[in-house]
């Protein structure tokens, strides 16, 4: 018997990222080799057409860990909520 180590994380999506994926939030089990926000986006892209569409231009999708803006290289270890969204247009 062998074991794939996974951790479960809550993901939340906003605006057209949410619309393309078709979900506002979900809990996913992420393989341990997925270390950064950029790697998480890349891994999500492989989960189906909707995800591929949402992350087709990864440079424009922004990420936040536990409600703080982060850079693509930020480590996801220990995160309880990771968000993906387009550039903000508040104000």
């Amino acid at each position: 018997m062998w074991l794939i180590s996974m951790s479960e994380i809550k993901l939340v999506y906003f605006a057209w990222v949410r619309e393309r994926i078709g979900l506002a939030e979900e809990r996913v089990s992420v393989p341990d080799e997925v270390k950064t926000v950029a790697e998480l986006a890349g891994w999500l892209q492989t989960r189906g057409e909707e995800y591929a569409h949402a992350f087709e231009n990864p440079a424009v999708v922004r990420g936040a860990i536990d409600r703080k803006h982060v850079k693509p290289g930020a480590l996801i270890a220990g995160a309880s909520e990771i968000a993906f969204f387009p550039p903000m247009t508040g104000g």
Partner: protein
Amino acid sequence: MLPLLTVRIQSEPFDAAAEIEALSRLGEDVGAVTSFTGFCRSEGGRLAALELEHYPGMAEEEIGSVVAEAVSRWPLYGVTVIHRHGVMRPSDGIVLVVTASSHRTASFEAANFVMDYLKTRAPFWKKEHRVDGSLGDWVDAKIEDDRLATRWKLDA
């Protein structure tokens, strides 16, 4: 005296006059109050509404940290920021920033700073509703807004 800081994220309309009045009454050395109100526009009659989505919790935190940064940079008696979410019709107020200081430049610059950072850091997204009833696009972030925000040399 600690500055009076107010951040509200709400769907209800705000009363700009009452918020300005409140910051104008923070003592006899308030010499300058600047307010900025951002409204929903029809874009020349093209839009029936804008729908504002936000990230609850993070919106308050981000705006709160922009306000905290503003009071660390300028001598302020008070800062009020209200940002609405939900469906806005043309002429509806979307965002209000009010700053009170002894001096004009502090009040002006702080209000401008808060708006610049709010535009690029607060997790809000606008979707267009066209007058023909169809859903339009998500409003694109302006590169210009990023440029304006970098004027203040704040780390991202």
